[in-house]
């Protein structure tokens, strides 16, 4: 099991992700996007950061690099993929996951801990949690507002493909608890396959005990679960 952490110019959460996965005993290698996906890759993590300086739209350029074609092929063969923050934006821009993450409602970069309600506890990325459980993860993004068409959103809800929604400490999904104006308070979704997941909050920043809360462990464990 070797997870490829794909670095683009401007990625900056790649080493955090590597350290978090190592802590969980999950093999991972940092892979430069121009070098292509290594043979024997058994998972793909698209890390956070600001690939291509967020030019055009966050994630738009990285989503159209040749390595993403290899990622698409790997994913179609059942390799699990997790996109975090900029990696989530790349996942949506590449069409691996639905919708788009765009400019926060308040037009500000937001860096703060948020509460998330687990919407579906049956995916590889959320099996460590109970449905309805409230966890706390940090966010750090300027373009994290989830937008999807009404039909897409309805499909996601009907098919149980929403992983997390922003909520308050008690698990109430309210406008006040929505840090960026995301449609339906959505913070993370899965693609056509539950093995493909993206989320704006940072599980890798909530995994090492030395850094405080470790609510993100369950998400990263998805690589071992898939």
């Amino acid at each position, binding site marked *: 099991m070797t997870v490829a952490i794909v670095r683009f110019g401007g990625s900056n959460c790649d080493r955090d992700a590597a350290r978090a996965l190592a802590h969980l005993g999950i093999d991972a290698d940092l892979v430069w996007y121009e070098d292509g996906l290594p043979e024997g890759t058994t998972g793909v993590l698209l890390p956070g950061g600001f690939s291509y300086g967020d030019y055009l*739209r966050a994630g*738009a350029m990285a989503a159209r690099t040749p390595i993403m074609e290899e990622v698409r092929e790997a994913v179609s063969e059942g390799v699990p993929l997790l996109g975090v923050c900029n990696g989530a934006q790349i996942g949506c821009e590449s069409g691996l996951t639905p*919708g*788009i993450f765009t*400019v926060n409602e308040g*037009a500000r970069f937001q860096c703060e801990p948020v509460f998330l309600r687990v919407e579906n506890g049956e995916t590889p990325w959320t099996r460590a949690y109970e449905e309805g459980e409230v966890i706390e993860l940090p966010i750090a993004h300027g373009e994290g507002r989830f937008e999807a068409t009404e039909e897409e959103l309805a499909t996601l809800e009907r098919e149980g493909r929403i992983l997390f929604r922003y909520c308050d400490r008690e698990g109430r999904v309210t406008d006040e608890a929505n840090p960026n104006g995301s449609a339906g308070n959505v913070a993370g979704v899965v693609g056509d396959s539950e093995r493909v997941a993206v989320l704006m909050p940072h599980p890798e920043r909530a995994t090492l005990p030395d850094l405080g809360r470790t609510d993100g462990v369950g998400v990263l464990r998805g690589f071992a679960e898939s």
Partner: protein
Amino acid sequence: MTAYTATVTVRLKSGVLDPEAETTRRALERLEFDLDALRAADVFEIDLEADSSDDAERRAREMAERLLANPTIHDYEIAVRERE
């Protein structure tokens, strides 16, 4: 082959929130300008050689479809003119 400029204008679909435009509108109001609404758009001017205006437009459309616009939130329009 003829030289053309294809201008691709990418706008948010009606109803999609634009926080940057909203912030700009408020800043204009702070400068005491009176306005009802403000919409922002991205304009890409693409110089290219093509067999015909239709060919130039077709290629610009493909660029918009594949990269410049995101269909979830954007509409786009294309105007092609011959370049001096």
